[in-house]
């Protein structure tokens, strides 16, 4: 399981999981599970288009993800957010269907793109993915305070000079980046599971933002490791394990919270933000 | 202080709240609340935020079961009270996309719980028109409910509640977001409704002063406990101090009443960040 051709999968998987956990923390915080779900699916269309045009899949995926994410932002400002997400998603998927009909892509490859394939990572993809991962986490780190504030208390963020719309756009770009890189191993349809299950569990354990963020990444990594190992053993698709374990995480989180007698709370972002030196002139 | 024996409406009143207590998440939210309302009586449910007013209203509506005590409306117990009570919540869904005009919402007051699709009928339409006119909402009758202002929505909700001719009308903080002129309009409208249609009205508010002209009785709540009677009986230092569990003064300035507590004490349900002397609105 740990032999040569699997090392790529383990490496990439770890990067992917960390990014998913970190980005996913904010996805769950902002209640944007639908967006996390929609962007990868749209990105899949980019993969189909890329294979049609004969360019690197990763580029096609990233381009489609960006278009999708920014499209959601743009449409969302003009109308309802959930409608915007749904429409952006289906338009991209429609394009994907179009590209697929032009190409002679074999079904197994599409299957791998959608549901994940442990052995689907080639050696020359490891470096770009590593770079993208570092970039994504760095972007989140840079955006941490404004993102936290505008996610939990948007009015307060505005008062502090943070523009929620701008933060949102930047965040969406990071989401696009994050999802582009995760397609190869986990698959377009299930990567979002990695982005919402572990953070949901982490939130139930602690309501302090930074520990929850870290825990979310850790859980995501563990989930993916188990998924890769299981997929290797059974030959079943990675996506299945990720989806199932994501649900387990969520259930565990809710169960734990119920046992403790409280519902998963929104992070004490106020105190967290104060720890980071953000002070307030307004009474909450 | 409970209602005194011999007071009108002690039994067989339209609304009988008897010894209602409620525990929620380990807290005693309602503590042995008792009072009665007769048809046509206008009562103010007064108390600050967190005193338990909304909870009490929900118990009366049947949305929340009390841990102890009973609520009877026209002699009937909780579950069978649907059409007897009209309810005006403080706010409703403000989705500007919602395809529902003001008149549609009022129409739902007639038959919102019935299955099937309403057949267009002239009678139904004229009933709706009449009610809209009564609350002075005709000019925005065809606007989407999500686009109405707070005061406009208020009136539509009142029409919705009244159109089914309830015996008891409950309103949750209807004056909270209104300007003074609208406040007076709503209070006057409700007073008229109470008298003319012999509807018992219970309206919750944190400031009793706008209601003084029309209020027949007051139910004053603090920390889940209630005292009921006329304003003269209830709004007295002794009564309120007993209710709050600390010394409270009652000041009358011109025609207005001010309730003042000198310092924080036990038994008060105030937000923790309130350091200044607690003052009830009224000045």
């Amino acid at each position: 399981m740990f032999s040569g051709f699997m090392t790529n999968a383990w490496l990439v998987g770890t990067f992917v999981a960390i990014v998913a956990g970190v980005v996913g923390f904010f996805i769950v915080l902002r209640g944007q599970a639908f967006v996390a779900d929609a962007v990868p699916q749209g990105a899949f269309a980019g993969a189909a288009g890329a294979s049609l045009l004969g360019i690197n899949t990763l580029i096609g995926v990233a381009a489609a993800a960006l278009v999708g994410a920014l499209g959601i932002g743009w449409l969302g400002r003009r109308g309802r957010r959930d409608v915007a997400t749904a429409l952006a998603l289906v338009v991209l998927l429609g394009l994907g269907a179009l590209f697929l009909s032009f190409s002679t892509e074999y079904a197994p490859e599409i299957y791998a793109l959608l549901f994940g394939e442990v052995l689907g990572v080639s050696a020359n993809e490891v470096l770009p993915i590593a770079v993208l991962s570092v970039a994504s986490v760095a972007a989140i780190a840079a955006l941490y305070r404004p993102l936290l504030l505008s996610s939990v208390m948007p009015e307060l963020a505005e008062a502090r000079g943070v523009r929620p719309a701008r933060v949102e756009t930047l965040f969406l770009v990071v989401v696009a980046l994050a999802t582009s890189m995760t397609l190869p191993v986990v698959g377009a349809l299930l990567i979002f599971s990695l982005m919402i299950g572990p953070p949901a569990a982490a939130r139930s354990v602690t309501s302090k933002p930074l520990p929850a963020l870290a825990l979310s990444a850790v859980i995501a990594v563990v989930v993916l490791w188990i998924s890769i190992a299981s997929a290797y053993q059974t030959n079943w698709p990675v996506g299945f394990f990720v989806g199932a374990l994501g649900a387990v995480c969520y259930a565990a989180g809710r169960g734990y919270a119920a046992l403790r007698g409280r519902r998963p709370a929104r992070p004490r972002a106020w105190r967290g933000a104060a720890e980071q030196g953000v002070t307030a002139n307004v009474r909450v | 202080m409970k209602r005194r024996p011999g007071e009108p409406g002690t039994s067989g009143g339209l609304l009988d709240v008897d010894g209602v207590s409620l525990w929620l998440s380990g807290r005693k939210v309602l503590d042995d609340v008792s009072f009665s309302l007769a048809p046509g009586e206008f009562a103010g449910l007064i108390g600050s935020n967190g005193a338990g007013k909304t909870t009490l209203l929900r118990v009366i509506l049947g949305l929340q079961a009390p841990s102890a005590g009973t609520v009877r409306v026209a002699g009937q117990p909780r579950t069978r009270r649907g059409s007897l009570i009209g309810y005006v919540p403080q706010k409703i869904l403000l989705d500007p996309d919602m395809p529902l005009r003001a008149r549609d919402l009022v129409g739902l007051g007639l038959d919102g719980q019935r299955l099937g699709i309403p057949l267009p009928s002239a009678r139904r339409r004229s009933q709706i028109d009449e009610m809209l006119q009564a609350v002075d909402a005709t000019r925005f009758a065809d606007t989407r409910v999500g686009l109405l202002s707070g005061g406009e929505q208020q009136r539509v909700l009142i029409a919705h509640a009244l159109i089914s001719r309830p015996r008891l009308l409950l309103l949750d903080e209807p004056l909270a977001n209104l300007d003074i002129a609208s406040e007076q309009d709503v209070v006057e409208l409700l007073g008229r409704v109470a008298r003319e249609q012999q509807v018992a009205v219970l309206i919750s508010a944190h400031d009793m002063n706008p209601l003084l002209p029309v209020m027949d009785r007051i139910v004053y709540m603090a920390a889940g406990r209630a005292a009921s009677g006329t304003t003269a009986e209830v709004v007295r230092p002794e009564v309120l101090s007993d209710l709050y569990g600390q010394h409270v003064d009652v000041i009358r300035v011109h025609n207005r009443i001010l309730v003042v507590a000198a310092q924080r004490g036990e038994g008060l349900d105030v937000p923790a960040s309130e350091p200044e002397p607690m003052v009830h609105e009224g000045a």
Partner: protein
Amino acid sequence: MLRAVFEPGFFSSSPVHVALAAGGVVALVSGIVGSFAVVRGQSYAGHALADISVTGGSASFLVGVSPLWGFVGVGVLAAGVMDMIGIQRPRGRDLATGVVRGAGLGLAALFLYWDTTHSNVTGATITILFGSLFTVSSTILPAIVALSVAAVAIVAVLYRPLLLSTVAADLAAARGVSVRLVGLACLVAIALAVSLSAMTIGTILSTALLIGPAAIGLRLSRRPGLAMAWSALAGLAATWLGVLLAYDSFYWPPSRHGWPVSFFVVTLIFLGYVAVQTITSRVRRA
């Protein structure tokens, strides 16, 4: 001139008839039920149910049940599960939906994998996920109509309590409406609609027809009945026009087997939405 719009054989082609009929029925139902889905903030749930019903579809290959019952059965079941874990409360709703969808899709992945390894059914993935209106067999048309009628009937019967509980749940509850049950019934209706459409025209169109036309209808009318009518009409128009264009595209480059229906219908819906949005925003600002 007419020849240019309607390529030869359009009106006489049997697959086209079936496509128009099945697509039309599905579009109407989705438009009507979708109005409630959008207003109740359950767009994501609708999308999720479409994909989960695919799980049922792929399981049906294994069990040997007709795909129709696989799709519909699992879809309705999933609606029940979603209701159980509390999808009706706005808080945490998206999260719950996403988790259920993830689990469902994971299972779909597994079933499809077993399908392909055990029965050598290649291309099943694409067919199930993207569907094709032109390959719907006319034998299941009666079943589609019947289930569609059922979905619309649920919404029609619960029309008033549903409206009231969507706008003001407390008001409805105070009147004796069981808000929870009504919500569950609505979700089941949505599940029926999307599983039918997922099966006939694929999951992409399923979501598109549920949400796009409904969003258009909401903008076009202030009255609930009229909004739903517009929605159904918009969905129907987009679908039929899409079928026509797909048929015509048979003669278009690059390949000689036409562009997919889903692409056309989705694009039409999207353009319609943006157009209506732009026009009505101007009017509102005026």
